[in-house]
């Protein structure tokens, strides 16, 4: 199950906690790696900074990416993921509060695989997390590399 981890890039600790709870409630037991901002997410993926020396061949099954974050924003993280040969096929789902058309369009332009707006109602959020996990972790097939 080690290689079936989820990378959650989220700067709001409340959202981190609630997201993790939602996944648990949805019976998704994959390891959830949390990056508190874009820089940390990139460090984790490319084995730099505080993740130096990490075995980068171990990649998450899914990246849940917030857009509005300090230092490096979600769109920039996505651009770097898609620009790197090692990570360009990684499934990335934008999970954000923003419902702006602009953000939607730019995310898909950058190569996001999905865009999910976080609802205020936690029950709806749990429902969304369950469906996300079911789809991306069980149904969806990704090439082996």
């Amino acid at each position, binding site marked *: 199950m080690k290689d079936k981890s989820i990378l959650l890039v989220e700067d*709001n600790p*409340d*959202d981190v906690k*609630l997201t993790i*709870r939602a996944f648990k409630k949805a019976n998704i037991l994959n390891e959830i790696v949390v990056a508190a901002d874009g820089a940390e997410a990139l460090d984790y993926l490319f084995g730099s900074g505080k993740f130096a020396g990490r075995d980068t061949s171990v990649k998450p099954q899914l990246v849940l990416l917030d*857009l*509005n974050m300090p230092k490096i924003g979600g769109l920039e993280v996505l651009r770097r993921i898609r620009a790197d040969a090692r990570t360009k096929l990684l499934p990335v789902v934008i999970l*954000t*509060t*923003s*419902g*702006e058309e602009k953000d939607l369009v730019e995310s898909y332009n950058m190569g996001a695989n999905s865009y999910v707006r*976080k*609802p*205020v*109602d*936690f*029950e709806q*959020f749990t429902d969304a997390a369950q469906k996300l996990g079911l789809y991306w972790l069980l149904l969806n097939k990704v090439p082996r590399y």
Partner: protein
Amino acid sequence: MPKQRHVSIRKKLITTFLTFATISVVLLGALFFTSARKELQSVHIAQLENIADLKKDRIELYFRERQGDIVTAANAYDIKRTLPLLGRLAADPSDPVFRETYRKLDIHTKQYRDVYGYLSIILTDTRGRIVYVSPESQMKERLGKHIYPENAFAEGKKDVYFSDILRNSAAESGFEIMASAPVRDARGAFAGVIAFEMDMTPVYKLFQDTTGLGRTGEELIVRREGSAALFLSPLRYDPDAVLKKKALFDETRAFPAQMAVQGRRGAGLVYDYNGVEVLAAWRYVPSLRWGLVAKINAAEAFQSVVALRNMVIAIAAGIIVLGVLAAMLFARSFSAPIMALQKGAEMISSGNLDYRVGITSNDEIGRLAAAFDNMASSLGRTTGELRRKATALETSNMELEAFSYSVSHDLRAPLRGIDGFSLVLLEDYAEKLDNEGRDALERIRAASQRMGLLIDDLLKLSRVSRAELKRERVNLSKIAGRIAEDLRKTGPGRCVEFVIADGITHEGDERLLSVVLQNLLGNAWKFTEKHENARIEFGMADCHGAAAYFVRDDGAGFDPSYSDKLFMPFQRLHAMYEFSGTGIGLATVQRIISRHGGRVWAEGEVGKGACFYFTLDERDIDEERHS
């Protein structure tokens, strides 16, 4: 733009000037020429009349003198005494008595020949036969014959008579006139006739004097012969015309000669015997039955005025040429600044607001140019101001965008936290809370979710205000139909009849107009949910000649006294527990309709349903804003 032929001011000015100058010069010239010609004609006519009168007087004087001569001779004692004797003796000229008598008489008559220049002196007997002729050389030929012309005897025996002009080779001029008068003897009985043959030379000399008649003028005498005028004097350029040349009365030429011989007196511009236009004066001399004409060619008479006319034409042509040149220069000085203005206008309209015409002349064009430059300056200032305002507006729009974004993102995140952790409490610590605690948590959750909706609707309203309008033909009926289908799916158990008019289209932004219909139809759906059977209608009505679209329902309706509050954000006419909603939908509708230049209003009554009307693309948007 329809094509219009461009005619420059210069061309117009020159054409106008040329027309005006030519017309005025021609008119003035013609007026001047006619009046000068008329004046000159009257001067010439007066002169010709003077000449004609003078010549007539002279002729009459001359012939009165000759009359005196012959009367004196007829009353001379020698002749009165001798003539009866001669009548008896003349049968034999060789008779010494005749010869003696002749010689004695010859001494007396010789003085008439020598002193007065008569060609011959003739005496006849009572029957008209010549009994005496001086000079003697003619004796042989003429003695005993009847005197010729016959009138000389026939008229002469009554009174002094001047014959018509006759040929006579002996006369210096080749022509003579015979004057005759009766001679009476001592007892007063008719004894015969005395006749003088007079050379015409002295008369003709009178006519050779062409003083005052110029190069072409001449004087002539004529007499009537049947229906023609016969020329009696040698003409200036035709010395052999005497007794040969005639002018028939029915011809237009030789008018003055014809008038004269018919006893008329007059003057005028007429045609002479050569068919040449002349100024002439004509007189009649009754004692001799002569017509007298003095004339001068019109061409010569008017020569000075013609020369003057030519000079005037030359000067006028010169003035016109100079005028055209002046007009061209003036037009250039006039059109150059106008063209500069035109260029200025083009420069400014192409966006170069710093361009200045800079014409500093002190006339109207200068003032126009100054006003133009002022206009350009103020246009520049205004445009600058507008640009600054546009930039400020753009900045504030961007700030608003950023604000909306952070509202959307940053305000919702804590709400999710409040809701999420309330749920955590409810789920994980439910047994530690009593009912009141659990109820409070539920209320916290409901409130935070409601705030989420409010935020979302506010964002929609702000997006509707900021979104760019894309105009295309929108099929409102189709959109309404689609929305109706969507609504049906949300409440499969409900019994709602949708009546949607076909083929309603209008120019506008499809996405925004969809929002309008979503709100209006959504409201109708919502406010009919408590009715078992409902009817929702979308259609078109006539509103003061313009098309008004409406959405009508037979639902809860509203109190019409609050109808002005309907379209204000967050204003709700129904309690939360009755109908859900944020109170922003109709505000959004109004914003969209207003952006389409239309109006929206509602009619309704509590419990009797509501009808929402809206128009698009009306002119008087302001009216709606003020009301």
